[in-house]
């Protein structure tokens, strides 16, 4: 049987694809449990950076729901102690920063106070906007124990509030303060739904 050259070439590409896809899927199956375990561990670690692990006893990583509100999709992890709600850990994103999205992890206690906030990802200017990282400065700790009752303090000092701004970078802290405030408002309005 004579196979014309284009078909021969196509068959050969097909054969190569088949072999390489086979190899990749072998490695995928060999590594997927380990990868899932890494992801779960990393998630648990970042969740525990905003809530003390002695305050809950449920399977935090898997006790989660997704809610939509005002065009923003929130993923919410629910911390419970003996079945009773303790706090909600909410992932939230703002694009009001200086450069791209800033991903936040915000833990809010059932009484509405902020337990802690951490920045998960950002691309703010190194040396200026990156003081929002805990390893660069303590700024992010100023959210601890804040509540919406004294909401006039929720602004940088330049805007009459309580938060330090960074020299040369007001946009970044302003974006984060607004986002945390919005998330706290969202929590207030949807608390029932969240802990269902």
């Amino acid at each position: 049987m004579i196979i014309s050259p284009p078909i021969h070439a196509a068959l050969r590409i097909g054969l190569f694809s088949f072999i390489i896809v086979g190899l990749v899927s072998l490695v995928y199956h060999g590594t997927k449990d380990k990868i899932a375990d890494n992801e779960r561990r990393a998630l648990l670690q970042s969740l525990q950076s905003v809530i003390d692990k002695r305050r809950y006893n449920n399977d935090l990583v898997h006790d989660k729901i997704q809610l939509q509100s005002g065009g923003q999709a929130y993923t919410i992890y629910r911390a419970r102690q003996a079945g009773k709600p303790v706090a909600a850990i909410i992932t939230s994103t703002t694009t009001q920063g200086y450069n791209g999205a800033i991903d936040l992890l915000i833990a809010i206690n059932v009484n509405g106070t902020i337990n802690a906030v951490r920045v998960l990802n950002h691309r703010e200017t190194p040396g200026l906007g990156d003081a929002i990282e805990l390893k660069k400065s303590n700024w992010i700790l100023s959210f601890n124990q804040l509540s919406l009752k004294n909401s006039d303090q929720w602004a940088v000092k330049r805007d009459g509030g309580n938060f330090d701004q960074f020299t040369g970078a007001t946009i970044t802290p302003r974006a984060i303060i607004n986002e945390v405030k919005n998330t706290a408002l969202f929590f207030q309005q949807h608390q029932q739904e969240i802990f269902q």
Partner: protein
Amino acid sequence: MYSDYSKILSNGLWHNNQALVALLGLCPLLAVSNTVINSLGLGLATTLTLILSNLLVSSLRQFILPEIRLPLFVLIIAGVVTIIELIMHAWFYELYKILGIFIPLIVTNCAIIGRAEVFASKNRIMPSILDGLAMGLGFSFALVVLGGFREVLGSGTLLAQADLLFGNTAKNWKINVFDDDSSILLAILPPGAFIGLGLLIALKNSLELRLQATKPVTPKVYE
């Protein structure tokens, strides 16, 4: 075809350095070279990719028809990179998170398809593996030097976060060269990468000129 191993090595490491002479793979080179450890991580991943892709291309070279060689090279390289990415995701998770999108982007590093086309598809397996190793080490060398330059000037440290690559024993390898407050921010920003690479190429060229001045000139042909 040539199998002069020392020539392959010296081409990869110096005379035809993919980053400093061929100027290939600049996207990952410029983006990741902000610390020594990031540079080394990407350099090693690129080296491994080069070795495996050269090995596969060379051993399969009689099955690779000339008219479809480019799609087949792309297929092989993409497969190798995906496998390396999965392995890093599983066993070097922290580093994987930092190098992030640059690992899949190794696919687009022209140095790799360049070596497949120029070298591995025309040479036996052993020289091809050596070529991949030499080219990869040359690329890593340029990355690490640039990373060191930018890390010292930009953050005032060397080998920060070495534990990402070498495990917990490396946590105290970090050297504080000077205080963070007096660092030159420009060095870790994108322009610092371009300026640093420019200085590195200039340095290489001036070394080369100085070497040539002391030696009689012999005409060279590089592959």
